[in-house]
């Protein structure tokens, strides 16, 4: 399971411009709707805001999708699913995290089982701040993502490949509460280094 850590990774820059333009205008999204932010999705898709005019379409499975939209807080239980879904997506793939919960835990900042920093576990390309963001915010985020793609800056999926071990460690730490203290410290240090990097 998961992705290769091949050395011969094709650089994003090497892609033809046409391909980038195509991906930009055809963002297919799989939205992970366990949080309360899901309520904002229907207006975005339907006639009021109509995201299809930008070529954005909701998809049923991660295999077909380019964008993973996480609408709100994640618990330890749902994080496992999110990672599964993310890893099943085919690169280039992007993650948009939606709402404050994904940034810092939001109103669940002191809950024992919610995920506070999504960035620790999967590479987020774009955050939409707010509790909760308006549909315009979502549209705006997508436009922003398009801009990033066009500029070749939306490289979360490459980051995930590069620091696969680190991400995995973080993930394991959440899922496995029985990691020994020493190991924890070691990994903590390594992770901090990676974050600096």
């Amino acid at each position, binding site marked *: 399971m998961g992705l290769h850590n091949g050395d011969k990774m094709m650089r994003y820059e090497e*892609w033809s411009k046409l391909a980038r333009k195509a991906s930009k205008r055809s963002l297919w999204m799989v939205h992970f709707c366990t949080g309360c932010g899901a309520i904002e999705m229907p207006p975005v898709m339907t*006639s009021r805001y*109509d995201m299809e005019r*930008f070529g954005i379409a909701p998809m049923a499975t991660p295999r*077909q999708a380019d964008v993973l939209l996480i609408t709100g807080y994640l618990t330890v239980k749902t994080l496992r699913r999110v990672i599964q879904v993310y890893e099943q997506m*085919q*690169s280039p793939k992007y993650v948009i995290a939606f709402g404050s919960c994904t940034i810092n835990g939001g109103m669940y900042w002191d809950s024992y089982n919610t995920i506070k920093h999504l960035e620790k576990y999967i590479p987020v390309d774009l955050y939409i701040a707010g509790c909760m963001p308006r549909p315009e915010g979502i549209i705006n985020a997508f436009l922003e993502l398009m801009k990033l793609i066009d500029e070749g800056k939306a490289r979360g999926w490459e980051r995930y490949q590069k620091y696969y071990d680190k991400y995995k460690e973080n993930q394991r730490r959440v899922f496995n509460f029985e990691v020994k203290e020493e190991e924890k410290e070691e990994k903590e240090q390594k992770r901090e280094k990676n974050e600096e990097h």
Partner: protein
Amino acid sequence: MDMIGIAIKITILIAYAIIGTCTGLLFMGIGRKIVARVHNRVGPPFYQNFIDVAKLLSKKTNISHGWIFDLALLFSISGILLTLLFLPIGGVQLLSTDGDAFLVLYLLAIPSLGFALGAGASGNPNAGVGVMRALVMMLSYELPFVITLIALMIYYDTTSLATIVRMQSINGIKSWAITMPPFMIAAFAADMALQGMLMEQPFDIPVAPHEIASGPMVEFGGKYLGSLMLYKAIALVAETTLFVDLFLGGGVVAHGNFAFVINFIVWLALIFLLFALSILIAASFPRFRIEQAFGFYWKYEAIIAAISLIWVYIMVIK
């Protein structure tokens, strides 16, 4: 046939294959636009599907589930191109003199079977259920469709699509099959069957994104999904063309030196009208359940088709 003739023929075939593909993608985009307008939305640009296909084919990761999964890609595009080329398009007989309507019916099964194999090979239960629904749908809509097909065949005393088109084009629009009362009924039944064939609502049971995660395509992504989109685009053209060939004289209205240009445009218009009709129906109806669809086709549609068949039979016997 000499070498030049063969070369010309091959060029024409390739040209029609490309035209078919582009037309299909274009129509799909227009179809999305139409649906959006019905929904009071702006909708994507008409060329959206070209972008989608380009994106899918340029995806970096493509996940396969083994060589049987790859058969889906290979069989779908080749099979549907094969089918398209065996149809008279706008009165132009490509390969349709080498086969007939039965051949076309069975050639249409090649890409479907290929895709079903790929879907099955992925091992996803949703794919299995989706294929099951697709096959049951096929069993459902084929009954009215073959009955109307047979009505046409015994009326024109041929099974060759080329001959059917030729006989309908003798007097232009006046000799189209749909101008005759029994075939009006038949055309209605066949159009409903076409709705199922195109897998548009209310018969989009096999894909049903909200129930079974888009059914057979659940594991398809990247180039596999891209080829599926191409297949759907060409299939759209092929299936509407089949209908046009059967009931609307293949779109042939003019005879003469440059008639084929006019005929081509008429054909394009006709298949667009058919597609637009189907899209409009799709945009305004919810989805049937599979039993309901089966009942619809085998009870009401089959009876309508059978009436036309009996009518035609009586006409022919007299």
